[in-house]
């Protein structure tokens, strides 16, 4: 069980990196418009087709 003394802090450090990632996402405004990004994949498809045609 002594290994827990290593694993627990490690798990928290990993979790903290996710928290930092989340904070970055919020600060960069990703939570402000949650519906337009869902449309973009549909558009990229069109654009790629066009490139292939050329």
């Amino acid at each position, binding site marked *: *069980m002594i290994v827990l003394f290593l694993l*627990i802090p490690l798990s*928290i450090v990993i979790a903290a990196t996710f928290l930092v990632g989340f904070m970055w996402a919020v600060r960069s*405004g990703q939570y402000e418009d949650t*519906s*337009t990004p869902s449309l*973009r994949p*549909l558009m990229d498809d069109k*654009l790629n087709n066009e490139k292939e045609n050329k």
Partner: protein
Amino acid sequence: MPDLMTNTADYADTRLDATLQSSEADTPEIGCFHCGTPLRGSVFTSRDKSFCCGGCQAVFELITENGLGDFYRFGNAAGVRTGSVPKVEEFGYLDDPELRERLVDFADGRTTRASFRAPSMHCIACVWLLENLFRLNPGIGYCRVNFPRKEVSITFETRKVRLSEVVALLASLGYAPQFDFSDSEGRRRTPVSRRLWLQLGVAGFAFGNIMLLSISSYLGLDAFSGPGLRKLFGWISLALALPAVAYSGAGYWQAAWLALRKRIVTIDVPIAVGIAALAAWSIGEVFTGRGPGYFDSLAGLLFFLLCGKLFQQKTFDRLAFDRDYKSFFPLSILRRKEGREERISLSQLRAGDRLVIRNGELIPSDARLISGPATMDYSFVTGESEPVEKIAGDHLYAGGRQIGGAIEVETVKEVSQSYLTSLWNQDLLSKDKKPSLETLTNRYSRRFTIIVLAVAAGAALYWSLHDSNRALPSFVSVLIVACPCALALAAPFTLGTAQRILARRNVFLKNASVIEALARTDTVVFDKTGTLTASGAGSIVFCGKPLREEEEGCIFSLAQHSTHPHAVRVAKSLERKHAPQPVQSFSETAGCGIEGIVAGHEVCIGSAAWLESRNVAVQSPATAPGSIVHVVINGNYRGCYTLSSALRPGADEAIRKLSKDYELALLSGDNEKERGRFREFFGNFGLLHFNQSPMNKLNFIRQLQAPGRTVLMAGDGLNDAGALKQSDVGVAVVESIGAFSPASDVIMSADMVPQLHEVLRFAKASVRVVQLSFVISAIYNLIGISIAARGLLSPVVCAILMPLSSVTVVVFACGLTTRLGSRIHRAAMPGGGAGP
């Protein structure tokens, strides 16, 4: 593709746009390749495609030449009609350094970033085109669309492209950005709830990790590894929980402190007390090494509370609930100076300037008419739907809209000192409605807090007499378990759900607490024009000897050439039956009538006075509601059209239903001629007031409120703005979502007016759901307190009880509200037809 759109975005207004579009596509006529407008008369062609106007053709060429032809593969006729090709010079005023400074978000020597509101974007193709703008102009860099907000943010090179060029490009594509006067005053969007998201993230992080550590202690970890690990877990939990308490809980600390300073009890007080008790007790336990504390419950509590807060904070980005007159005014105005015309921004306007006002433009400040007879539509200011004729030298009030040819005016006052503006600058209107602290939750929490404190004190007293060691723990654990998490969640989740359900029916609430006000409403006041009656869609009846088919065709062809609202309506009523014929020697006497020769007939239509002055005997029908347009063909009087404003379909039924449960009143800026008609609908007890000025309306609402009534006012124009603000619930009725509406609490699509009764009933039902949820949370609290008062509260019990009560309440509240909401949907379908 519009169908796809409705599936992906859950914005009801988008859906509305999509349905409008598809109904256009249903018409069998051949439409413009770009925008789908049915082709009539002259057609523009390019590469085998037909277009309705030069603007559409130009956009098509611009798009295809730059390799964006795929735009048209998103769907048929995805474009927006532009009419004509706008010139860059028209937007030259935007390059004025001072104005530019206020309009752009960011600018330095190299790059500039600006956001534009482009309400005409409506589908995925629009998003695609706008995000590919850089292909059309090499100076433009990165473009990003925020679809729900109908906003495009564009980065461009400062030296290569001017702001006016970017705007002209957008306008030429049909996405003319909307600027209004308030933009130039440095209006900035309220920052979105970033802080709340961050707080939620921190609380969630603490909650997840502490839970992970706590589960081991619930299961008796000591059996395997001794107390060392438990101590470590306690300290780690403490370290994780502190930022959550300090940062995530900050909103509750502040709110509770504020409430205490004002000596009132809001829901935040028992929450803050609960959090403080939990934190203090747990820290004590960790320091003394007695146990792991209640950090798991603490972090969970914060997490759930913040979820509720976020859920309630649904805002409708596209809609502005706090517009004032400035938003109605254009950003720029055409000034004539020393024989030259120049576009200047409205803030540069000074008294004594000469302005050119074109058809459909607003008079920005009180002015004197210099040249040209004017036809002023004051419906904006007074609600009077009939335009008023003015001659040179007359005084014009700001807010009037010119109908007809261009006129020249000289301003006599500055924008901020005009009649309309001064109305606005009254104390009342400049003040915001204070958000009421007297919400349901706060009423309950007051009693609740007193009871809890009494029980806690009682428990402490009891144990100090019997077993003094248990006095403090029982006191603290009562405070802990009584922390009204479920109580605090009941209202946000119920009202938030209700708000979403209503939004799907095109009724948008400023915030969730408006529902409580809707439920309290006992008096409903309507504006007439534009609210109960549909503007421009009234009935038109011809009186006199029936017209021959051919004669009707002539009248249609002639009326088509005028912009006077009466002529427009006559033309519209005949549009379906006839094709336009060429008109010779057309002439219009502004505000009086029009004449011309169509297919060899001399046709003359206009007002009685005008025709009489031309020696034609006119017979006006004795009692006609509404306006009259007389017709003379080849010198013979043929009869007249009576135009009456039509009640919205279903509005009469709605009024009858409402009259059973509510006091009703009608306020109109219009004259009395329709009194009889409305008396029928409103019954004998409804109050009908005509010829009401904006100030009269406001005072009327105030009088109603004096004996303690809760008044709902439904109106549409600036003339109702004062009344909307004074009323307890101001409902702005709009023809299309996103159109300008005065400051209000509710923005409602006009086709929901007949369902107002259902909406009010739903609001009442929602409030009842909140009350039921309170009962549930009270039961949980009773169980919890009964355990706590005996001093038996263990971390496990606490950790189970708290989330369980919260989850039950949330599921109950959301589920029941959704069920009730689906009921109004069904009721709304036959009349409204707004939903898909």
